[in-house]
């Protein structure tokens, strides 16, 4: 039954694309696919099951993201939609796509440094200014406007900027 298998794959692709288009309410240039928050999409007849993983335990965007996924899938014609949260494996900034990193930088947020090992977490981070590209920057505050960001300042162009911190 090659035709059925192919249509199942098409259906799954359609469901994935619909869910993957949902953006982070706090960083609207990033989709949940860019972020690595979207983990799985399974289609079984009319039923779609979507697995997402939180960036931080207390991330208040998760409820909003789940709601947006349901809306996007119902717009794409799916009837029975279940969004579940998976904790394991724990989300890491290493899952952010190259495209996501580029979009973040263009948006004015310095993308996370790669390899979010514990050493990276505690080592001295060298963050590049997303505005002028200078490496001469300093940390203002470890905690920024959302759980996932820190506040930095560029010593060359003097502009403050957000840094999506390693996790």
């Amino acid at each position, binding site marked *: 039954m090659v035709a059925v298998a192919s249509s199942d794959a098409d259906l799954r692709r359609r469901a994935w694309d619909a869910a993957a288009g949902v953006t982070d309410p706090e960083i609207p240039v990033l989709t949940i696919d860019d972020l690595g928050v979207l983990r799985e999409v399974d289609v079984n007849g009319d039923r779609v099951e979507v697995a997402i993983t*939180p960036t*931080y*335990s*207390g*991330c*208040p965007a998760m409820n909003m993201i789940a709601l947006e996924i349901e809306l996007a899938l119902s717009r794409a014609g799916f009837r029975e939609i279940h969004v579940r949260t998976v*904790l*394991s*494996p*724990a*989300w890491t900034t290493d899952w952010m796509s190259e495209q996501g990193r580029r979009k973040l930088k263009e948006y004015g947020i310095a993308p996370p440094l790669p390899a979010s090992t*514990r050493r990276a*977490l*505690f080592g001295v981070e060298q963050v590049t200014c997303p505005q002028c590209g200078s490496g001469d920057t300093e940390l*203002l*505050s*470890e*905690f*920024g*406007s959302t*759980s996932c960001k820190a*506040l930095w300042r560029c010593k060359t162009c003097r502009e403050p900027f957000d840094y999506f911190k390693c*996790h």
Partner: protein
Amino acid sequence: MATPSITVSETPLVLYTLRRADDALILGHRLSEWCGHAPMLEEDMALSNMALDLIGQARELYSYAAKVEGRDNDEDKLAYLRDVRQYRNLLLVERPNGDFAQTMVRQWLYSTFADRYWLKMMRSTDPTLAAIAAKSEKESAYHLRHASEWIIRLGDGTDESHARAQAAIDDLWAYTGEMFGVDDSERGLIDAGIAIDPTELLPEWLAAVADIAREATLVLPENDWMQQGGRDGCHSEHLGHLLSELQHMQRSFPGASW
């Protein structure tokens, strides 16, 4: 009329999970009390961010405790509808915020423990606890770094900040022993690899705390008498006041939601 409290069947795993959930919720609530009151805007955001992490951890743990218990309790009921004697948190985390040094010393003593605790719990044979541990550890690492930097700055700062930091350590020290306590209900979980033995963390906790204290020119107290009771629901008078604020809405308007 106020909503009555729920009852919870505290099997060892439910109790174990509730204890950690209560630690996270109560400390998270304490930190949230700083929101809008911190000495500067960056610190206001830092304390609120840390509160958010802890309350997020509490939610995961409460949901799991409810699932293991298998009755009709859920994360909200466990947080909002248990009275003070049913709370199982460490006495340390319910200590009032006091001044900024008091808050930071409490955070530092707790996070130095929590970061190591969650790191070890990632190898729990219970997959849900291991998954919660993996997220919590990353967050605790940030809390620990933030608090440690403040301890050094306060201790090695002005005479005033040094005196306040030292007073906070002297005041809170007797509440640290409880973090390393093990009772009969936990012994079986440790043997099964579900829980870790916290007494094994004591030497490295002590060494890490001593390192920062030395750099901060602060002195660790000599006394080794430790206050306990929180794990069994025997709390200081402060927790009841905290809960009255935390639970007021749900007690007065049952099931109220946004």
